[in-house]
């Protein structure tokens, strides 16, 4: 079986968010780029499945410009076998899914993160599943191979559900899918240099959405501090001033 892991290249989660061009573009100066945290966990789980046997190859794919290659190399260093970069700018989920659909057809299992931590779109995985007419499960926090089927744990309100589903499958994963993301070791980094990173040119596609403008959230009023001895006063304030109790 072959697994495809979709990789989004995102700013480090502690990045200070700023904009340029009159608030129309994200200011990426000085930004550290990382593998989207959910994609990193997905890749970790793919590696665990491969180590357990039954998986021949793990490919990682990203739609992005040349600058995203460092992130793909990191995925190779962690243990993916090869990488595909589709050489175009990713601005819209429909466009990105259109590009991925071109390379995804050969894989029995595709893992996508629940969202990318930059634009929080929650869209590419589900769209790709529909384009390929694959089965899909979302909010996945566990996955195992079960003969030709998959045994999948998904989060539901207030708990979880274990389901059985056939392939080909697109699993949209979240926290819990793997415990800790793997960190590349020196040997992995050396080996990654020799692993194939294929560059595909994009197919025609359209953006169905476009960001017109960014805003920063309005600054928050200062916190009202109450002494520990007067703790009860907080409850009174919540009742009488904030009127939320």
């Amino acid at each position: 079986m072959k697994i495809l892991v979709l990789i989004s290249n995102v700013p480090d989660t502690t990045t200070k968010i700023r904009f340029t061009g009159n608030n129309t573009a994200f200011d990426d100066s000085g930004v550290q780029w990382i593998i989207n945290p959910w994609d990193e966990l997905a890749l970790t789980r793919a590696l665990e499945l491969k180590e357990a046997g039954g998986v021949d190859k793990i490919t990682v794919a990203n739609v992005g410009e040349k600058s995203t290659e460092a992130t793909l190399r990191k995925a190779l260093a962690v243990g993916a076998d090869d990488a595909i970069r589709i050489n175009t700018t990713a601005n819209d989920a429909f466009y990105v899914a259109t590009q991925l659909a071109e390379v995804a057809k050969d894989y029995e299992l595709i893992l996508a993160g629940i969202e990318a931590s930059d634009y929080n779109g929650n869209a590419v995985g589900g769209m790709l599943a529909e384009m390929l007419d694959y089965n899909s499960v979302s909010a996945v926090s566990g996955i195992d191979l079960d003969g030709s089927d998959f045994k999948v744990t998904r989060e539901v309100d207030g708990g979880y559900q274990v389901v059985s589903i056939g392939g080909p499958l697109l699993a949209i994963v979240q926290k819990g899918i793997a415990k800790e993301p793997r960190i590349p070791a020196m040997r992995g980094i050396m080996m990654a240099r020799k692993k194939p990173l294929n560059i595909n040119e994009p197919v025609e596609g359209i953006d169905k959405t476009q960001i017109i403008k960014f805003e920063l959230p309005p600054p928050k009023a200062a916190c009202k501090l109450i002494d520990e001895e007067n703790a009860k006063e907080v409850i009174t304030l919540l009742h009488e001033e904030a009127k939320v109790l």
Partner: protein
Amino acid sequence: MSILVYTENWDGKFKNLSFELVSYAHAIAKEMNSTVTAVSLGKVSDDDLMKLGKYGATKVLNVDDERYNSIDNRATAKAIASAAKSEDSSIVIFANNNVGKAIAPRTAIKLDAGLVSGVTALPLSINPFVVKKKVFTSKAIANVQINSDIKVITLAQNSYDIIDLGQSATIETYDPGIVDTDFSTSVIETNKVSGKVLLSDAEIVVSGGRGMKSADNWGGLEELADLLGAGLACSRPVSDEGWRSHSEHVGQTGVMIAPNLYFAFGISGAIQHLGGVSSSKVIVAVNKDPEAPIFEAADYGIVGDVNVVIPEFIEAVKAL
């Protein structure tokens, strides 16, 4: 032309989340001189279906089919897309929860529609269609334009007030023509904590962090939550340690919540934690470290010990 809302049910009942979507859709419909149709999948009582009318649905398409009692992404998307086509809907609205996130993207492809998820307010304009959504895990807001004829959006929880208009809806039985082979998910086991307030639905949330020190110290938080009818939550290390279940973990990589009131006890306020809770209307922080970043996000704070403050809060709430 109409606006279609997918009103999810929980064991046959609607929750505020569904009513919020209908109220929101009604406000857009008014602006467009259009009407709201709700689509319901699975077994729901007539009483509950009628409630959707109160909040502004003119018509309810009732797909009374028990195959929908658990979610299958493909079959659910197919049913909703079918309803959207038969209603000639130009806008389709989902909740931005697990189910909405699962179904909206597949539905968007079926309708050749653009999708924006996590919308936080009424559209800024209808033509062109521009909505606000949170980006960078609540660190910024983007105005996004959808260029396709049909628009699909998911609405972030607690973005719009539920308004009882005292109207009523006609209920129609609807058959989206889904066959058994469209369903591919078979449930082996469901494990839900029942009887507790669901985090995603809670108006008040009581949350504890590593400062609570151990799983045995949760009694006070449980009591406070009980008294307030609140949901319980925790920071990521707390669920990683196994002190609390993973379903209670809130933050960027956990559940995203937006209650009216959020209590943070012994939580430092890391950026990834705040990403999932900063949309709360009012935040109360209790932390013994005056420099803890949680105080920058909080509205009310106590620099103090959780072991002292929690019993005081319990007493004060009892006295209300």
